């Protein structure tokens, strides 16, 4: 690794044993940094870890930008898609601090979309994800939370280090509303991705730069006035569907909406899409932090559209339109 370090610091110099030995000796005299997670080896400095693990980012992310990313604090609420987003974010940003929140344990049915094995079943999601993050970046301070109560959510916002961006991957409506109210008050952007079949729906709410009188991009008007504690299950499903929307869904995904509570327990999700969604969230975070023009709105990454030749054929469009119309009439009842 010292050789690799020398190489990335001197990419223009052909390897020279004498020069390298001098470098190696100089590095051996440096006092080793303290790691949050111990490894079998150590390097001369935290800078060395940082340089090696970000060398391949150059110059897609330059040094100044990398420092900005490193100093950004993101809170990831919900660790299914959220686990992919958090770990991908850490991989690319090498952030020094992160907050992860999820009250759940890993169940066997999570294994299709959380990058973990059977030995993790029964373990707390925050523990598993914290472990992965610490292995990726042994200098990252991971603050993990498991209650998800309103008080805890407020503390996550207010306690040091203050969060710069929030990623919402939870199902709990009340929590989602509270995130946005606090984000609006503190002018923090909210990013949320839903994996829907083979497609990803990304919502960006820039409470930091644009006035946002309405939450959730106003997809569900007056959502914050709803009393969720007495909301029937059917109404909850209606809300989810209205929030996610029917646009760009495949026929099979739309069919699944009929099946929930019947042949299947809940909303189906796929591992590949969860992974893509995590990458999309991490990329969105990077672009927001680095000041690119990412504005509030809903964005679709439709792999069906991209890959499948006849996805937008008239026949398939009509089929989807028919199914959507059936669901809408069911929801009205």
């Amino acid at each position, binding site marked *: 690794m010292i050789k690799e370090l020398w190489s990335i*610091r001197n990419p223009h110099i052909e390897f020279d044993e004498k*020069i390298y030995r001098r470098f190696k000796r100089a590095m051996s005299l440096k006092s080793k940094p303290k790691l949050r997670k111990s490894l079998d080896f150590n390097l001369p400095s935290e*800078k060395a870890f940082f340089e090696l693990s970000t060398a391949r980012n150059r110059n897609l992310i330059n*040094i100044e930008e990398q420092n900005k990313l490193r100093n950004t604090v993101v809170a990831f609420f919900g660790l299914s898609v959220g686990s992919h987003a958090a770990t991908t974010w850490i991989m690319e940003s090498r952030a020094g601090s992160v907050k992860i929140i999820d009250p759940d344990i890993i169940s066997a049915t999570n294994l299709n979309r959380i990058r973990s094995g059977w030995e993790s079943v029964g373990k707390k999601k925050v523990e598993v994800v914290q472990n992965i993050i610490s292995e990726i970046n042994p200098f990252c301070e991971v603050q993990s939370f498991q209650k998800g109560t309103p008080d805890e959510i407020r503390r996550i916002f207010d306690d040091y280090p203050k969060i710069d961006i929030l990623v919402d991957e939870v199902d709990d409506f009340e929590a989602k509303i509270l995130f946005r109210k606090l984000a609006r008050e503190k002018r923090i952007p909210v990013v949320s991705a839903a994996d829907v079949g083979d497609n990803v729906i990304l919502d960006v709410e820039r409470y930091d730069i644009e006035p946002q009188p309405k939450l959730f991009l106003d997809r569900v008007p007056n959502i914050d006035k709803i009393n969720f504690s007495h909301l029937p299950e059917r109404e909850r499903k209606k809300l989810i569907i209205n929030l996610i929307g029917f646009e760009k869904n495949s026929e099979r995904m739309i069919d699944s909406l009929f099946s929930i509570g019947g042949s299947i327990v809940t909303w189906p999700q796929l591992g590949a899409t969860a992974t893509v969604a995590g990458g999309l969230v991490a990329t969105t975070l990077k672009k927001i932090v680095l000041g690119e023009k990412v504005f509030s709105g809903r964005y679709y990454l439709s792999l069906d559209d991209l890959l499948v030749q006849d996805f937008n054929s008239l026949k398939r469009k009509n089929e989807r339109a028919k199914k959507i119309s059936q669901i809408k009439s069911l929801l009205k009842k």
Partner: protein
Amino acid sequence: MQKYSYEPWEVNEDEFPKDSTSIADIVRFFIRYAILAPSSHNTQPWKFKITGNIVKIFPDFDRSLVYSDRLYRELHISLGCALANYCVAADYFGYDTIVEYYPESDLENPAVVVGIHKKQTNRLGKELFPFVTQRTTNRNPYLDQKIPKDVLDNILRYTSSKLNIDVHFIQESNVKKKIIDLVDESILFAFNDTIFKEELSSWVRSNYTKKGDGMPLFGFGIPGLISVFAPFLIKNMPAQIQSKIDKGLLNQSDTFMVLSSKNDDKEAWIKTGEVYEYLCLACLKNGIATAPMAGVVEYDKTAKMLQAALEITERPMFFARMGYASQSPHRTPRRSLDDVLLF
């Protein structure tokens, strides 16, 4: 807010914040001199971050010459020039500087970290301070006048051997002739490259430019109206014509300066820039003009041949022509301090 693009040159020593209780104000004041330093194509590829008595100098890769300086050697030399100006200013006002190059302990990865401490050092830098705001790169023809050896020896006093950069002043005609041929070869190589010329043309400016960077063509002796076509002129400059112009200028220069180093790494490049800037200011103190020409050291083939011509084992890092000049060009534009400070 900066009123116009030459305003940074008007920094005055009377503005030194002697009554300020914040040392950061003093650091900020010294940076106003740092940004007057020369840089390749006047790209000013630097950013500064102030923390108390410390300034960190970062390379600004957005201002790098991605094609002609893909190692970032010239960029780092430019940082060294800025560092030298900073140290000269600090020394003048009674502050010692402690410099670290790419310190291992600094996660932000600055190229240089400079701390200042109040202390009268009596370093030679004090003598160079008045010339910081007068310095220009003089690309005009020089006079047919010899630079005496004792003057060159005097100029050499202003560099520190601690920087480990070797300085070679070449006056011997046989060696100069060889060097002229090498510089010529590097010019032909560069100006036969359309991408090089495209990149260069993006940094030349008309003489009426309002931009805070780049090279107005008055620095090349091109008058106002013609300079309006600056990028077009450069893009379409035939290599043979550029070669003829540069050969003429080299033949009229009494002395060549070559800086060389045992190491060819970022630290050596920064130190090369420091040494050049000290020498440049010292030359100015002695009425001598300088004009760097990077091609001969950036083109590997000619760099090796230059090394052989000088019979040295160290790699040449920097080349400039020197001489007495009858006219001094106008200074080049500068970006404002606020443009280069990181918060």
